[in-house]
C-alpha cells in the first residue's frame, strides 16, 4: 500500500471520504516524512506540530460524524511564510520581521481552514519573496529535492521543496514574477497562478500590489484544481473539464520566447518542442503564435515591481538596510531611484501588452510556452543563480494577469526536472487545467519522484 505521505491530494481525499484513511494517520505519516527529509531540504521555517495535530483530530471526529466538509478536509497544506496564519509569525524569511505575529488568518487561509485543511507550518521563501537563495539570513534557504546541491526555484522555494519531497500534498506560494511557477519548474511539480484577483491577497505580505498572485503548488493538475475550487471561494468547479482531452483544442505555441528571445538550454528547449509535438499527436491543433519579446515583458514587470515595492520597503531601506540579505537589498534598492516617468511608461505599455495577449486568444484556446530556460543550477553558484534567475517566460503573465500553470515535461541528463507552461484567457482556468491535465496524462513524468532519502 502507498504510504499516506506519498498520496496525492485527490487520492488522500478519496481515502478520507471512504473512511479508509484518517486525517490523524495522514498527518502523522507526513510528520515522519518531514522528520526524515526536512533536514536535507530545509523547507520549513516554523513547524506548528501541536496545533496541526489538534486540527487533524478535530477533522477526524467531524468526518466520522458527518463526512468531510470538502476534499481538503484533513489535508495538510503548507504556507509560504509571507502568508498570515493567526497567532504565528509571518517572518517573510527576514530578520526585519522576526517579531511580527499575525493577528488573523490571511483570507486564503480562512478559505482553506473553512474547508477543513490542516496547517503543519510556515515554509521558506526568498526574503520578502524577492531575494534569492541567501546564506546571511536567520533561516537557511530551501534546497531542491531532486539534488540538494541545487536551487529549488523561488521565491516559493520551501513550498516547492516540501511538496516535491512528499512532506505534504499541497502548499501555497505567491507569484509576482513567476514565484509559484519557478519552484514548480525546478522541483518537477505543478504550480498554478490563477487570473489576477481571483484568489484573495488580504493577509499576504505584498511585494507588488498589481502583480501579486497567491497560488497552489501540488503534485498533480487535478490537485491544483481541487485547491483552486477552495481558494477561489467556490466560484466554479475547476475539475469539470478535466478528462476532456486535447482533441480539437487550439494551442498557440510561443516559440520565440525560448528559441530567439532567450535561447533555452538545449535540453529545456528540446523538452518544450517535444511538448508541442505531444500535444499535436494527442489531437490538439498547434500553431505558432508571436507575442512581444520577452525582454519587453520583463522590463515592464521589473519597472512596475520596483515602483510598487519601493513604497513597502522605503523606511527599512533607509533605516535598517543592513538587516536585509545582501541579495534582497540589491534587488529592492532600484525602486527608490526609479523615475516616475519610467513607471508610467511601464504602466501604459502594460495596457498594450494585455491587449496583445487578448488578441492572441482570439485565435487559440491556450498558449504553450517555456517556463524556465534552464534546469536548476547549484544553489551555491551565485553567479549562475543570478544569470539564470531572469531567464524565464513567466513574468509576461504577471504583467497581463492571465492564468498560467507550469508542470513537468521531462528530466535533464543531470536528473533535474524540465518543464513547460500553459496560459489561458482570463478566468478560463477550467480550460487551462484541462490542457495541462491532458498533457500530464499523455507524458510519462507524472509519477516520477525525486530520489531523496535521509
Amino acid at each position, binding site marked *: 500500500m502507498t504510504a499516506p505521505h506519498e498520496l496525492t491530494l485527490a487520492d488522500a481525499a478519496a481515502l478520507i471520504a471512504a473512511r479508509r484513511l484518517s486525517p490523524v494517520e495522514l498527518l502523522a505519516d507526513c510528520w515522519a516524512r518531514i522528520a526524515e527529509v526536512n533536514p536535507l531540504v530545509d523547507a520549513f521555517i516554523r513547524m506548528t506540530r501541536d496545533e496541526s495535530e489538534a486540527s487533524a483530530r478535530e477533522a477526524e471526529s467531524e468526518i466520522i460524524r458527518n463526512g468531510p466538509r470538502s476534499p481538503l478536509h484533513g489535508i495538510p497544506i503548507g504556507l509560504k511564510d509571507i502568508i498570515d496564519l493567526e497567532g504565528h509569525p509571518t517572518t517573510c524569511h527576514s530578520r526585519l520581521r522576526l517579531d511580527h505575529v499575525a493577528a488573523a488568518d490571511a483570507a486564503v487561509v480562512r478559505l482553506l481552514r473553512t474547508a477543513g485543511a490542516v496547517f503543519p507550518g510556515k515554509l521558506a521563501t526568498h526574503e520578502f519573496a524577492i531575494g534569492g537563495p541567501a546564506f546571511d539570513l536567520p533561516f537557511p534557504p530551501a534546497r531542491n529535492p531532486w539534488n540538494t546541491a541545487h536551487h529549488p526555484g523561488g521565491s516559493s522555494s520551501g513550498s516547492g521543496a516540501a511538496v516535491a519531497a512528499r512532506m505534504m500534498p499541497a502548499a501555497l506560494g505567491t507569484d509576482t514574477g513567476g514565484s509559484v511557477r519557478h519552484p514548480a519548474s525546478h522541483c518537477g511539480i505543478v504550480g498554478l497562478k490563477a487570473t489576477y484577483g481571483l484568489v484573495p491577497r488580504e493577509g499576504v505580505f505584498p511585494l507588488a500590489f*498589481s502583480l501579486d498572485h497567491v497560488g497552489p503548488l501540488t503534485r498533480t493538475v487535478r490537485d491544483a484544481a481541487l485547491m483552486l475550487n477552495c481558494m477561489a471561494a467556490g466560484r466554479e468547479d475547476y475539475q469539470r473539464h478535466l478528462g476532456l482531452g486535447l482533441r480539437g483544442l487550439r494551442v498557440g505555441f510561443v516559440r520565440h520566447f525560448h528559441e530567439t528571445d532567450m535561447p533555452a538550454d538545449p535540453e529545456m528547449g528540446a523538452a518544450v518542442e517535444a511538448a508541442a509535438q505531444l500535444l499535436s499527436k494527442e489531437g490538439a491543433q498547434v500553431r505558432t503564435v508571436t507575442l512581444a519579446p520577452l*525582454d*519587453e515583458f*520583463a*522590463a*515592464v514587470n*521589473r*519597472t512596475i515591481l*520596483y515602483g510598487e515595492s519601493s513604497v513597502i520597503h*522605503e523606511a527599512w*531601506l*533607509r*533605516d535598517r*538596510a*543592513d538587516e536585509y540579505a*545582501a541579495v534582497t*537589498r*540589491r534587488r529592492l*534598492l*532600484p525602486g*527608490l*531611484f*526609479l523615475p516616475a516617468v*519610467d513607471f*508610467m*511608461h*511601464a*504602466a*501604459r*505599455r*502594460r*495596457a*498594450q501588452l*494585455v491587449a496583445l495577449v487578448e488578441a492572441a486568444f482570439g485565435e487559440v484556446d491556450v498558449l504553450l510556452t517555456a517556463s524556465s530556460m534552464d534546469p536548476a543550477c547549484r544553489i551555491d553558484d551565485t553567479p549562475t543563480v543570478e544569470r539564470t534567475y531572469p531567464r524565464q517566460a513567466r513574468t509576461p503573465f504577471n504583467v497581463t494577469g492571465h492564468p498560467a500553470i507550469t508542470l513537468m515535461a521531462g528530466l535533464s541528463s543531470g536528473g533535474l526536472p524540465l518543464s513547460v507552461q500553459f496560459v489561458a484567457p482570463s478566468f478560463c482556468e477550467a480550460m487551462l487545467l484541462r490542457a495541462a491535465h491532458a498533457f500530464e496524462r499523455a507524458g510519462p513524468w507524472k509519477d516520477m519522484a525525486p530520489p531523496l532519502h535521509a
Partner: protein
Amino acid sequence: MDHAAFTTLAGAAGLADTALRFPDDIKEALATLARHKANLPRNSDPTLEPLPAYRAPKAHGE
C-alpha cells in the same frame, strides 16, 4: 558618476546613510535601472492610458 553627483542622488532618494554603508549596492541599483530603461518601450501618444486604470471613488452605498 562623480562622488558629488552620487551623494546628491542618494540624498534625493532619502538614502544618504544607506549610500554611506552600501555604496556598491546603490551603484548597482542605478546600473540595473539603466539596463531596464533600455528595454522599456516609450510611447509618445499622450492619450494612452496606464494599467491598472485609475478609478473614481465609488458612490455612497456601492
